[in-house]
């Protein structure tokens, strides 16, 4: 059944055999998941956000389970860009996986430098810019909270990367007006938008009477936040349809656990979908979601994935005046 469906999708010039990716920070650089399925079969592997230097991250506990979700405060632990380029990228290439490299920085210069380093590396399919990290120059306020700082990062990255490498801006849902931030990113040259990053949350340890996470607050992810992700995607896609901002593809992320969940994000406007927290429940989740998505489309008679993108925006059938012939029963 799944085979009949054309799952291929297009992200700003980048053609992917299917729209399912891992979410940054939930699949490391793909290697560990290769034990469970071939990561080259995914649309892409989005790598953990990498910074310039090696980073040890935050103290532990770094996670807490919440109702249908979890909090994390990893603190972008990672090997730094040199080690990433030396070890992780070549491995991804060696297995034939498409790599979307996520980058993070404490200031615009760090983002620029990271993009510069990646621009001439073979095997970088796209760069995802994690602007949900604290801007050291601005009281640690995250870039993604302000249109201006978001735009500054995106234009710096876009300027130094070769045109063939699309730039995806990854947005935070923790803002009053996500369309405004999306707009700033697109105007600054983003070729696509990834929505959404985690919501800021907190959980208290009732035995120790203190926050469960050593860093107190953390990022909320998992099915609990899916309605927020769907809403953000919907709002930005609708704004694009209305001509309020330039149309660019949206990569949906937030609470996807099944093919049906992925379809929800797609119908709201996502041209590709990432699977994050669900991997912790099931390391095969990304490939399973791909197969289930194909099945869901086939069941609905949708032969091409791209036909489903944004489909829920078609206005619901308007109410027609009373008529006496009832619709056929389907009891």
């Amino acid at each position, binding site marked *: 059944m799944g085979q009949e469906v054309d799952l291929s999708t297009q992200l700003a010039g980048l053609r992917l055999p299917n729209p399912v990716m891992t979410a940054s920070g939930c699949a490391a650089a793909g290697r560990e998941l290769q034990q*469970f399925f071939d990561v080259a079969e995914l649309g892409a592997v989005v790598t953990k956000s990498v910074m310039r230097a090696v980073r*040890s*991250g*935050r*103290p532990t*506990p770094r996670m807490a*389970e919440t109702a249908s979700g979890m909090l994390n405060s990893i603190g972008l632990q990672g090997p730094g860009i040199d080690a990433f380029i030396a070890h992780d990228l070549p491995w991804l290439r060696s297995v034939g996986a498409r790599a979307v490299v996520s980058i993070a920085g404490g200031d615009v210069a760090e983002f620029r430098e990271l993009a510069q380093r990646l621009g001439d590396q073979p095997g970088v399919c796209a760069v995802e810019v994690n602007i949900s990290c604290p801007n050291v120059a601005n009281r640690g306020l995250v870039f993604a909270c302000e249109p201006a700082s978001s735009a500054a990062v995106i234009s710096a990255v876009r300027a130094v990367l070769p045109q063939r490498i699309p730039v995806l801006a990854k947005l935070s849902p923790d803002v009053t007006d996500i369309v405004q931030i999306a707009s700033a990113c697109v105007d600054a040259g983003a070729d696509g938008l990834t929505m959404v990053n985690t919501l800021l949350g907190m959980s208290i340890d009732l035995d120790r009477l203190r926050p469960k996470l050593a860093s107190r607050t953390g990022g909320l992810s998992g099915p609990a936040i899916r309605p927020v992700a769907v809403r953000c995607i919907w709002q930005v896609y609708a704004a694009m349809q209305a001509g309020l901002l330039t149309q660019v593809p949206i990569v949906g992320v937030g609470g996807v656990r099944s093919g049906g969940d992925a379809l929800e994000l797609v119908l709201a406007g996502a041209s590709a979908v990432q699977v994050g927290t669900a991997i912790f*429940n*099931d390391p095969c989740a990304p490939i399973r979601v791909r197969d289930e998505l194909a099945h869901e489309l086939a069941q609905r008679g949708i032969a091409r994935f791209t036909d489903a993108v944004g489909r829920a925006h078609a206005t619901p059938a308007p109410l027609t005046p009373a008529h006496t012939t009832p619709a056929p029963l389907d009891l």
Partner: protein
Amino acid sequence: MAATSGEARRAQPVTTTAQVAQSRDVGAYRQLTLLAPGVAQTARPGHFVALAIGDERSSMLLRRAFSIHRAAPGEAGTVDVVVADAGPGTHWLSELRPGDEVAVLGPLGNPFPVPTAPTSCTLVGGGYGSAPLFWLAEVLRDRGCRVDLVLGAATEQRLFGVETGQQVADSTTVTTDDGTTGAQGRVTDALPQVLQRGRADLVYACGPMAMLRAVTEVAASHGAVAHVAVEESMACGVGVCMTCVLAVRDDDGCTRMVRSCVEGPVFRGDRVRWDAWQDGLGQVPADALGAPSGGH
């Protein structure tokens, strides 16, 4: 110092849906026997499994980690775990009945390294932490090792496997905090004498962090090397999330925040930065690679 073999340590983990073959109370715990041949086949003492809680509609997304108490390869292929009902996830597992299904992921982590030549070993378990030690004892005895066992808990009910210990080990020493059975006190109170008596070169320990630290120190003061299995909160169990890190010194003395799920859960006790761990909080030592942290 005794040489331990590093070969074939990590196993190929599989995801599978296991039937519960048996579930029974053992003291304060519940012992589950799971039909999981794919896991049983490659499991070794010190490996752990991650069990999913509920089905795809469960509000509890994260798997729970359990040391493998014993794996019986073969066609039936069973894996036993010992579960303390400590919260909603373990409670759900405790209520499983024969015939019920549970998603199993394993074997995970690095098992206890075993000596390549006959060696005298002391195994120390706190509470359910003793669960993996009896199987380890058998493996060690098969290799000609002497095995002394020290089992401790807060109270008698929370000891696990004293009888089994008496069958598989050369000696079994029991301590309880409240003196309900065995010697009143902690495992580390009894340990020096056991180490001396057995002239142990190797110590294996599993239990709470404070115990592991104390065991490591007692072992060192007796010239023995301790291999300890730590218990950090784990979201993924397979190395992709970075939640389970611990400050550990490498061969060159450089401290790194390493993933206890794939680089552990068994570590050489003298490599763990115990000074960075206290009261449930794991600090990033100032001299750790990539410290201090900022960002998120």
